[in-house]
Structure formats: structure tokens, C-alpha cells
């Protein structure tokens, strides 16, 4: 019985390692197998070289590597329980997302919670589990595909979640997720499919159809409003702006009240509020469009790209307690109302207070539940709507100003008349 020498065993061992057998146990098995096979053939009179060649041939076309691949697959096959757990996580998150979407469309309570849970489960539990499984069971040259698919899908899911919840950073996350999917995963996936499929032209056309659908969906998402409908809404905003400009044309009235302290105070308070509203307008436009304040000043609302964006306006107004928060706006308008009342004589202030434009204590009904003033007027309202609201407030202020001016004029007319009583009261209020 022939026995291989050290050198020959080392040669075979090196050959096995060189052909990608990394696992020690398997290496030992195969080394013994190949050596014994060669020894037996040498007993029948074959040379070492011929016996070696003959034995290697028996491993089949996939060679040694395939042995390892199959061992790997058999050893790491997901067991039944894990499959069930993964499946139930996937099912739960799909169900939650579906329910959340329906709730959202119907404006029912709890949509946000459902969507957060669903997307969270999908991105943080199910997708990692899926990736782990995929990486374990597929060959190494596919891992790039699976990782890019995982990263792309996770980012897209988180991006959609942020978008729906109007959290900051949604656009960047969503875009990078979709870019990874489009630029890496989809090409890799179809390249792989294309290479391994029997009918290449069918695979190719299926891929193209899928891509086209994908593109169409996103194309349609961005043009879901009719142009005429849009123009109708923007027209209201533009007309309001015209009215504000016209109502601000009150210099002639002020000039008739020269030397009147009340008129000076009135002008100051109106200017202050008007400037505040204008600065909100500029901030919203410049932030949403990503342009400077200077450019925002000259911008036409109907030309703005972000006219239907409500993420950024909502984020600016409700994202904190800064200079441009909804609460800061309320504070400013409240002080305007308090100050303008001072123009009137004390006896009629409570009557005038009742007809002031802004009532922040009132609750508003919105899709079945009650909200406060700022939510009702600004939350999730697109930029064009928010700007129209601001113009309307400007006009309210101007109207209140005109009212007060006419009152002051009538008062001064009375004080110039000879009637002593009213003259005295006018002098008092001055």
C-alpha cells in the first residue's frame, strides 16, 4: 500500500486552500479524501500526477469551492422558528404601514403612531434581519447587492417616515436612499438576474417595465394638482397683496392728523406689526426656496418652486420657539391689538376689542377635532397658503388702522367744533 510523502500532502493541502476552502474542518475532510483516493489509485499502478488529476476531476465542474458553498448553505439555513419570527415581523410592519396610510387618508386619529411603528419595525428590525439572512446564505460576490439594497431601502423608509411626519431632513434621507437603490441595487440586481436567467430578453424587458412604473409613480406624484386649480388659489393670495398695498396708502389721512399723539402711536404700532409679518414672509420664502432675503423680497409667489411645500413652513413655524415661530407671531399680533386699543377713549375700548381681527382664544374645528389658532391657520399648509394667510393678516392690520384713523379724524373734527363737553373729553384723551 503506497503512502504519500510529506511534500505531496503539503502540495494537496495548498491546492485545497488555494481553491477557496477556508473552513478548517472541511479542509481536513477533503485533504484526507483526496490523499486516500490518490493512494488507492497509486496502488493500482497510476502515477501521483495522474491520480491527482483524476481525483480532482471527480469534484465536478464547480470544483472544491462548490463543496464549501453547499456546506455553508446547509449549515446556515435559517431554521424554521427564525423564519417564522422574521415573517411575522415583516407582516406586522406591512400591516401597520397599510393601516397607517388608510388612517392618514381618512384623517383619523392615530395615523402617525401606526406609521411610526410600522416604518420603525421595518427599518430597524425586519430589514436588518433580512440582510443578515441574505448575507449568510448567498455567495460573497452578491453581498454588495444585498448591502446596497438594505441601505437604500432603510434610508427610503426612514425618509418616507420623516416626510409624512414633517420632520426635518426628510428630503435628503429619501433622496439618498432612492439614489442608492437606483444607482446600485437595481443595476446589480438586474445584472445578476440577467446573467443567470435562461431567457435574457424577457428578463431585460421585465426590468424595463418595472423601472418605467417606478419612474411613472414618482413623476405622477409631483403633478397631482391641476394647473387651473392651482392658479385659482394663487390668485387669492395675489389679490390680497394688492389690497394690502392699497390700504397702506394712507399718508394723506395721517397728514390731516399732524401733531396728534395718538396718530403717531398708531403709525408706530402698525409699522411694527407690518414689519414683523413681512419678515415672516421673507423668512418663509427664503428658507423654502433656498434664496437670500433680498431675492425673497422680489419673488413672485406663483413662480416659486416650493409653493406647495408645507414641510419647511411647518417646520419653521412649529419647530421651536425661535424668532419665526407661530408663538412669536401670536405675541406680536397680540401686542398690536393691545396697543391699537389705546387709541380709543376708555369708554369704548371693550366695544372696539370685540371687533379686533385676531382671536387667539377661540378653538377651530378641523377634520372633526378641535385645534388652536396657529395649528388651524398654518400647520401643514403649503407655502402659498401660508403666504396668503400672512397677507390677509396684513390687510386686517391695515383695516384696523384705517378704522382707528377715521375715529381719530372724527374726534379731531369734534374738538374743533364749539361744543365744550366733547372738546374737554378729547383734550383728556390726548
Amino acid at each position, binding site marked *: 500500500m503506497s*503512502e*504519500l510523502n*510529506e511534500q505531496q*500532502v*503539503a502540495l494537496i*493541502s495548498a491546492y485545497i486552500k488555494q481553491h477557496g476552502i477556508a473552513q478548517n*474542518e*472541511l479542509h*481536513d*475532510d*477533503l*485533504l*484526507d*479524501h483526496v*490523499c*486516500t*483516493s490518490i493512494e*488507492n489509485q497509486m496502488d493500482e499502478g497510476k502515477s501521483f500526477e495522474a491520480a491527482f488529476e483524476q481525483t480532482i476531476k*471527480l*469534484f*465536478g465542474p*464547480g470544483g472544491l469551492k*462548490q*463543496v464549501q458553498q*453547499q*456546506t455553508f*448553505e*446547509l*449549515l446556515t439555513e435559517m431554521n424554521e422558528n427564525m423564519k417564522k419570527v422574521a415573517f411575522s415581523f415583516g407582516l406586522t410592519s406591512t400591516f401597520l404601514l397599510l393601516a397607517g396610510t388608510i388612517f392618514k387618508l381618512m384623517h383619523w386619529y392615530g395615523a402617525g403612531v401606526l406609521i411610526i411603528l410600522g416604518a420603525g419595525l421595518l427599518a430597524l428590525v425586519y430589514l436588518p434581519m433580512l440582510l443578515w439572512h441574505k448575507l449568510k446564505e448567498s455567495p460573497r460576490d452578491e453581498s454588495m447587492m444585498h448591502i446596497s439594497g438594505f441601505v437604500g431601502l432603510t434610508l427610503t423608509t426612514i425618509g418616507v417616515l420623516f416626510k409624512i411626519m414633517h420632520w426635518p431632513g426628510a428630503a435628503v434621507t429619501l433622496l439618498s436612499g432612492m439614489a442608492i437603490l437606483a444607482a446600485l441595487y437595481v443595476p446589480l440586481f438586474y445584472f445578476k438576474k440577467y446573467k443567470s436567467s435562461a431567457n435574457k430578453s424577457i428578463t431585460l424587458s421585465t426590468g424595463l417595465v418595472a423601472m418605467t412604473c417606478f419612474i411613472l409613480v414618482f413623476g405622477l406624484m409631483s403633478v397631482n394638482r391641476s394647473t387651473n386649480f392651482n392658479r385659482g388659489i394663487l390668485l387669492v393670495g395675489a389679490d390680497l397683496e394688492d389690497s394690502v398695498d392699497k390700504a397702506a396708502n394712507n399718508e394723506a389721512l395721517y397728514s390731516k392728523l399732524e401733531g396728534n399723539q395718538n396718530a403717531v402711536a398708531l403709525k408706530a404700532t402698525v409699522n411694527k406689526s407690518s414689519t414683523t409679518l413681512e419678515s415672516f414672509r421673507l423668512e418663509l420664502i427664503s428658507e423654502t426656496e433656498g434664496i437670500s432675503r433680498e431675492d425673497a423680497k422680489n419673488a413672485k409667489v406663483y413662480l416659486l418652486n416650493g409653493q406647495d411645500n408645507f414641510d419647511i413652513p411647518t417646520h419653521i413655524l412649529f419647530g421651536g420657539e425661535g424668532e419665526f415661530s407661530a408663538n412669536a407671531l401670536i405675541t406680536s399680533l397680540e401686542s398690536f391689538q393691545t396697543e391699537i386699543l389705546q387709541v380709543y377713549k376708555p369708554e369704548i375700548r371693550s366695544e372696539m376689542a370685540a371687533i379686533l381681527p385676531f382671536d387667539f382664544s377661540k378653538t377651530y374645528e378641523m377634520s372633526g377635532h378641535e385645534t388652536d389658532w396657529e395649528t388651524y391657520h398654518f400647520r401643514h399648509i403649503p407655502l402659498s397658503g401660508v403666504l396668503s394667510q400672512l397677507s390677509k393678516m396684513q390687510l386686517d392690520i391695515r383695516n384696523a388702522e384705517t378704522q382707528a384713523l377715521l375715529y381719530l379724524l372724527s374726534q379731531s373734527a369734534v374738538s374743533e367744533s364749539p361744543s365744550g363737553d366733547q372738546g374737554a373729553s378729547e383734550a383728556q384723551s390726548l
Partner: protein
Amino acid sequence: MYICLMYSNELIKGTLKTIVLSLLAKKGRMYGYEITQHVKEETDGKIQLTEGALYPLLHRLEAEGLLETEKENIGKRVRKYYRLTETGNDQATSLAAEFHEFSQTMNRLLNNFSLKPSYNV
């Protein structure tokens, strides 16, 4: 690809585990090459296990706790002997019994089918 020649892959794929376990039940302990040679001889070369089918299966059965290994040094290399564990022994018995019954059932069934035409003539 799994097993060479004579019988179709579909037919033999499901019986590979039965073959290996029964063989080990009979022989006690064996190493990989020995198993392939033994199956080849016993079946007059009609069933030839390939390395690509045998070693993955052995490793899996070991991971499942049906087999255990002992190593022996043969010159410069290590030889791994596989033997049945207690659970492996139980499995071997039940798999062999199951296959036996299955082949009897198949025989009966196929005999019925093939007899019919000859009666009709």
C-alpha cells in the same frame, strides 16, 4: 450533480441522508472516502456519492447532533471518523423503516398500474 449516474437526481436527493445514516449504523465508524467507496461497491457503482454532496451533508448532520467525529493522525494529515450519536441512531432506524415501507407501497402501486394493461389485452 449530487450523485452520479444511473438514478435521477430527484429520486436520490431525498435518500442521501438515509443512505449515510444506515451505513454508519451498520459499520460503526467511517471516514468520508470510505463511505463513498463503500456505497459504490455495495451498489455495483449504480450510486456514486460525490464529495460535493457527501461532505456538506456530513457537516450538517454533525451540526444537528446526529453524528460525532473523532480525529486520528495518518502521517502528516488528520483523518476524521464519523459515528452516530444516540439521536443519530434513532434517526437511522426510523428513516430506514420509513423508506422500507415507502418502497413497498411504491412497489404495490406500480405493480397495480403495470398489471392492468396486460389484463385488458
